[in-house]
């Protein structure tokens, strides 16, 4: 790939102007580093263009009045200017509540994952016991299975259609549809393994002496984990937290199927509503469904939906990079 676009870039240079290129070429022969430098900039520009262009297209659509959205040329430029779409989206669909729901689901999942994954990470990172390896592989395997393979039983479980034997009495599972639980629990199970791997690496690096010292001072084993090891591994914990939150904000499958798409219509009702927990997925799809020809609204809503994670990526890019590579490869 890199090689192809490089030669394409050089050809274009050759065609555009012979004189400067000739000079450039003679210098390049004396100093091949210049060629690599040029190739590098061409390739970088290509990647920047391909990754950022779709966002630019969203912006063009969002600020163009809907009736003017037709036959864009290349490069597309806005036809007119109507930033009102960014207000209309909140009037037609309570997008802010969908985003808020996603935030609450994301934070709840992150909190649960960090506690459970800390315990497991401590075990895998610092203890040696029979069955360590098979157990870790088992946990790893889970995160790979398709959500579709869990859907039916979980749906039945969370809609009150599974009988559970308790002390010899068959009890129906509670109907939790439209509550956060049928989303938070699958999210936790799916995204916990990555956090376990990240935390295993970090907790495993803390010198034994520090834990021993804390134990001599009189802390329990769990006290040492939460008071000494976790704080010392703060960067790792932050990495796991950021990745879990982004994963939940990204998730589609259970966010789409484990609720009926409804949210509270006003912010004040958010605190009163117990059964309207549809996340961002449903908010965006609401524009596609109800306002199917309002392309400017779809684009504006997408931009608003992307902003929180875009900010998170800018702030926490180091953690994201280290987390993804560590979680996937170090183990």
């Amino acid at each position, binding site marked *: 790939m890199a090689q192809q676009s490089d030669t394409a870039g050089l050809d274009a240079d050759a065609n555009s102007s012979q004189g400067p290129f000739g000079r450039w070429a003679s210098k390049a022969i004396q100093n091949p580093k210049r060629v690599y430098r040029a190739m*590098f900039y061409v390739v*970088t520009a290509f*990647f920047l263009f391909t*990754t950022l262009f*779709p*966002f630019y*297209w*969203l912006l063009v*659509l969002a600020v163009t009045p809907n009736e003017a959205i037709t*036959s*864009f040329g*290349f*490069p597309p430029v806005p036809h007119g200017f109507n930033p009102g779409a960014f207000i209309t989206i909140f009037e037609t669909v309570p997008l802010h509540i969908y985003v808020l729901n996603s935030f609450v689901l994301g934070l709840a999942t992150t909190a649960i994952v960090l506690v459970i994954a800390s*315990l497991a990470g*401590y075990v895998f990172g610092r*203890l040696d*016991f029979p*069955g*360590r390896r098979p157990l*870790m*592989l088992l946990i790893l*395997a*889970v995160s*790979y299975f*398709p959500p*579709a*393979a*869990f*859907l*039916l*039983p979980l749906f039945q479980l969370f809609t009150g259609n599974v009988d559970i034997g308790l002390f010899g009495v068959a009890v129906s599972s509670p109907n939790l549809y439209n509550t956060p639980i049928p989303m938070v629990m*699958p999210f*936790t*199970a*799916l995204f*916990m393994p990555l956090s376990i791997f990240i935390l295993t690496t970090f907790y*495993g690096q803390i010198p034994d002496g520090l834990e021993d010292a804390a134990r001599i001072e009189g802390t*329990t084993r769990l006290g040492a984990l939460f008071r000494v090891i976790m704080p010392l591994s703060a960067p790792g914990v932050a990495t796991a937290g950021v990745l879990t939150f982004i994963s939940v904000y*990204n998730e*589609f*499958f259970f966010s*789409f199927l484990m609720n009926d798409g409804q949210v509270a219509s006003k912010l004040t009702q958010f605190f009163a509503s117990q059964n309207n927990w549809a996340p961002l*997925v449903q908010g*965006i*799809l609401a524009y*596609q469904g109800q306002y199917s020809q309002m*392309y400017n609204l*779809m*684009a504006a809503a997408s931009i608003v*939906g*992307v902003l929180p*994670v*875009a900010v998170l990526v800018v702030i926490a*890019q180091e953690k994201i*990079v280290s987390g*993804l590579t560590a979680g*996937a*490869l*170090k*183990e």
Partner: protein
Amino acid sequence: MATEQSSDDFERESRRSGPYVRAVRWMENLGDAAFAYLLLAPALLILGVIAFWPLVRTFELSLHADQLVGTGTVGEYVGLTNYVELLTGQRSALLVRPLIPTVTWSDQFPFFHGIQNPFTAALTVTFIFTIVSVLVETVIGFGQALVLDQDFRGRRWVRVAIILPWAVPIVIQGMIFFLLFQPNIGFLVDPLQNLGVFSATPLSNSVDSLLILVVADVWKTSAFMALLILAGLQSIDRNLYDVARVTGASKWQQFKMITLPLVLPTVLVAMLFRTIGALRIFGLIETVTSCSTVPSLSCLVVSAFSSRQYGTAAAVAFITAGIIAVAVSVYIAKFADTQGGGV
């Protein structure tokens, strides 16, 4: 009362901390193995309820007939009938109705003209999507990793730009590509149609949609590939390049003789990760084409589930899980050992 407060407090304190102290003492005295299992219990419990039990239960459901009337619970035990009928195409009438309004995919995939079975179609479409998108992602991701491996001004922002699509929610990724390929508004559709690549309405055409889905998937996930490969690149001993330079190797030779062989295991692991991800594809397809023109395996599960064909849905889900299990076991057998360290 007031005079006795201090001794009362002491009493209450010791009574309250009684069970706690005993629990701590019990925990402290556990052997390492028992303590390990105790701490793993929450993780294993949630995985058991959310993953292992559903997997077993899905298999159980797949052995039961669909029951389309009444409460929508499963019908009687029918053994492997669901699997047999899926594989031999006898479920086509059942599956096509909710899934594909008009059976156009076999017309639009001339190379699969004989396929009349929606299950075979879903399997084929999923495999084509997986193979093509993983290969393209590997090439693009490798390129991005080579860029990110360089030291240059503004590197931080280039890295943000490259990983940004990875963080975009699937539903918005789908929305972006839905909007890019709308007829009449697109600057992309008209030229591509003039070139004869696309039809006028690419999102209602199976071949075009499949191509769009591959591009959308590559746009979002090649960053993931790039980060994994970057980690591989940065673990290569820089001295090797110094030695190569001294012995007069060109940049291309350095790449071929040092970079490529040393980074290859990492690339293979990354490809396997993406293969597993691509085999599960659902959300993107649902958003871009409502699963109607490009039915993946997961689309088939959801559409059978939505029309309350629980037995059929379970059978497709279990087959999907089985296919992915093969990929996962390849990973565990081939690479987990060679990566050293923990697992």
